């Protein structure tokens, strides 16, 4: 049905796909797996017409096609269900399904009855029972997903791509989703199923293609492979050399720089306990949605939590940004633009943002002290910018990240929580950031590194804590820090980790 050959795609400075083949048959559920950054998203976007490949050909039912944009792909019968739904919450289920394709009656007015009937027929085809008159916003997430799928079925569907469809669903809802996918498979649709959850792939899919670093590793029939074999294909790679050597000595005994004790965040994190000792880099691994970022946000008072946060053995009276910063704990967010930088303020004000009290002279912020601080951090982290008065919005991701590191290392010397510290950063800046992290740790700072890049977790961590579905599922040290073991703890359900 759909066949891609030698697809290449590069972005400035990054090769996302280096000649990938993919062959998906009608009436098959084809899994697409790989680590974050392996190229899955790029593949999907190329198939769906959101990106143009730099080289390679796409064939749909044997014919070479070239999409002018997502609309063209849609017209040809290729539909993608992304994790984020695009429903109008106040419109009815029927209106959402039929939006743009309403059935018109007399005088060109919309025939609501016929439109609702058409929507109901589509839901029937999926074997789903929903009230087509209910507002979409009132539905459960799982039912909203069904509406999304139904939207695709208004037109002829030849290829349906599901991007991490189960990430937002409960176990029972996943069963419902599987039922629908099997129904579509029986109707001859080619389904591409992207998921991190290996159990699901074995339960649902017919074949699997493994991507890694923008290349295809293999395509296997599910019947011919097993769980461990698949994990090996996903992660088996030499560790790149750009990681600095790990801590020479085991961290000293004594109070932890930062500790979470029995921390729960309603609906997100269950009873998490973990400690970071001074001078240690602890990797916090897990799948997206496992509750890692939520743990950090709760400590900083953004999400409500129960349990205690300890800094240097002292329990904080309240878990919020003010108390943590005063105790010397900083947080480099994964959402650099949304929660990190002040995009309209200059470099100096961004650098001094968390330590403003240090530049007060007689109650007033000293321009001189502030400029000196900014210059120091610019030099220290080799930030390529126009100087303290320069704008931050025009800087590269790597330089922006260094400014955040500058802000937090000025303010906090006890512990740092780094959430996806190298996201959106090019390879050169990545290795710089890794060295910065190790130097900070060597100077006695305890670092908790939340990362979805397994390679980074393995390369940087002295110890790894893995979370799965809101709870800590295990801890790995020394030789046991491998991508396979992390993946097992992060993805596997049923078997309890040691």
């Amino acid at each position, binding site marked *: 049905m759909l066949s891609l050959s030698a697809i290449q795609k590069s972005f400035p400075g990054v090769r996302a796909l280096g000649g990938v083949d993919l062959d998906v048959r009608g009436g098959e559920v084809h899994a697409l797996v790989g680590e974050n950054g392996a190229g899955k998203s790029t593949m999907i976007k190329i198939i769906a017409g959101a990106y143009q490949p730099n080289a390679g050909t796409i064939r749909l039912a044997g014919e070479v096609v070239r999409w002018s944009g997502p609309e063209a792909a849609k017209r040809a019968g290729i539909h993608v269900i992304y994790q984020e739904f695009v429903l109008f919450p106040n419109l009815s289920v029927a209106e959402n399904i039929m939006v743009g394709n309403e059935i018109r009656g007399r005088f060109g007015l919309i025939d609501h009855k016929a439109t609702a009937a058409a929507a109901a027929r589509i839901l029937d085809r999926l074997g789903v029972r929903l009230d087509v008159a209910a507002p979409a916003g009132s539905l459960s997430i799982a039912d909203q997903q069904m509406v999304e799928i139904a939207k695709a079925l208004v037109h002829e569907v030849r290829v349906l791509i599901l991007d991490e469809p189960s990430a937002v669903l409960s176990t029972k809802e996943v069963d419902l989703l599987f039922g629908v996918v099997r129904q579509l498979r029986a109707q001859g649709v080619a389904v591409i199923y992207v998921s991190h959850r290996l159990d699901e792939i074995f339960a649902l899919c017919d074949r699997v293609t493994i991507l890694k670093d923008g290349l295809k590793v293999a395509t296997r029939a599910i019947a011919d492979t097993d769980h461990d074999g698949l994990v090996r294909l996903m992660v088996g790679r030499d560790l790149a050399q750009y990681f600095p050597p790990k801590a020479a000595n085991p961290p000293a005994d004594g109070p932890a720089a930062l500790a979470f004790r029995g921390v729960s965040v309603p609906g997100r994190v269950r009873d998490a306990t973990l400690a970071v000792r001074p001078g240690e880099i602890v990797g916090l691994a897990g799948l997206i949605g496992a509750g890692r970022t939520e743990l950090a946000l709760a400590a900083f008072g*953004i999400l409500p939590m129960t349990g205690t946060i300890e800094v240097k053995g002292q329990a904080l009276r309240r878990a919020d*940004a003010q108390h943590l*910063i005063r105790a010397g704990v900083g947080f480099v967010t994964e959402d650099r633009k949304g929660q990190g930088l002040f995009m*309209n303020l200059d470099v100096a004000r961004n650098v001094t943002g968390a330590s*403003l009290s240090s530049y007060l002279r007689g109650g007033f912020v000293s321009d001189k002290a502030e400029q000196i601080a900014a210059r120091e951090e610019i030099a220290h982290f080799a930030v*390529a910018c126009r100087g303290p008065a320069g704008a931050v919005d025009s800087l590269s991701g790597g330089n922006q990240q260094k400014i955040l590191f500058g802000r937090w290392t000025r303010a906090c010397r006890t512990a740092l929580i780094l959430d996806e510290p190298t996201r959106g950063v090019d390879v050169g800046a990545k290795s710089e950031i890794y060295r*910065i992290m190790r130097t900070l740790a060597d*100077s006695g700072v305890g670092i908790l590194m939340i990362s979805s890049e397994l390679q980074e977790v393995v390369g940087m961590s002295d110890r790894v804590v893995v979370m799965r579905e809101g709870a800590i599922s295990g801890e790995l040290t020394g030789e046991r820090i491998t991508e396979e073991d992390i993946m097992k703890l992060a993805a596997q359900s049923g078997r309890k980790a040691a």
Partner: protein
Amino acid sequence: MTSLDPPHQTPPQTPRQNTRLKQAFGRNAPLLVVIVLIIAMVIAGALMTDRFLTLRNFTNIVEQSTGLGLVSLGQTFAVLTAGIDLSVGSVMSLASTLASGLIDKDVAQAAWVIPMVLLLCALIGATNGLLIHQLGIHPLIVTLGTGTVLQGLTLLYALSPVGGMPRALEFVAYETVLGVPIGAAIMMLLFLAAAVFLGHTRAGRDIYAFGDDAEAARLVGINRARVLLTVYGFSGLMAGIAGVYLAIRFGVGQPYLGVNYTLSSITPVVVGGTMLSGGRGGVLGTLLGVFLVGVLNNLLNFLQVSTHFQLVAQGAIIIAAVSIYVDTRRSRT
């Protein structure tokens, strides 16, 4: 901290000459635009009549601008936090009516009434801040609500001008120092103090940071409640000062005094380059914006056109000035 040797030193970007110029212009574009407009109008006025470029007329313009200046200063704070204060007009009405009614031309009463009225206005503003913080409702709605309530309360107190301000206080409005009326001098000093506060105190910096990105501000430990209370409390206080000042100038408080000031107070703020999206701009731009409006109205007075035409011109100026400014920003990126 131990020293970090950057693995590979990236050479600092050398900005092209014209980009630097453009960026410098970009940041100060609103100020420059407003200054150029003021100069253009002054030239036009000078060519039109020889009564325009006189000390007497200058004093007149500054005096006419004082009330608007005071209330716009407070409004600038609210807009810097990506908010807005639509209660300022009602607070002005309340302050002027209450002060005038309670003082009733008795200068001995003024000594305690004026401070109490100003305190009340600051508390009203702080209540706005508290409601915004606690209820999580947009400032526009909260202040629209409190403003409506306050206007109603003012009218319950007095339906028409009531009492009177003592003549002994008129010096504030009419005595001049070097051609500047005392009230206007006080206003400009308040602008100066506000500029220092915003740029050089922790609380002032917090206002910019909060206005730029409330989430990021929270993560660096900025107290949202404190920012909102400060900003709206100050806005209420300034509206109160404006109301009392105008009561002194007119000799009596008026229950409808502030009606036109609510929206007018936003004009100098946006013309002066403070962005409605928060975090960008400042009080210097607002002061220039106030003078722009003052010179424009003065010029139209000389032209002997209808005072209603002043509104037409003011509206056009808002859109014209801000569109020039927006264009400059867009071409910067």
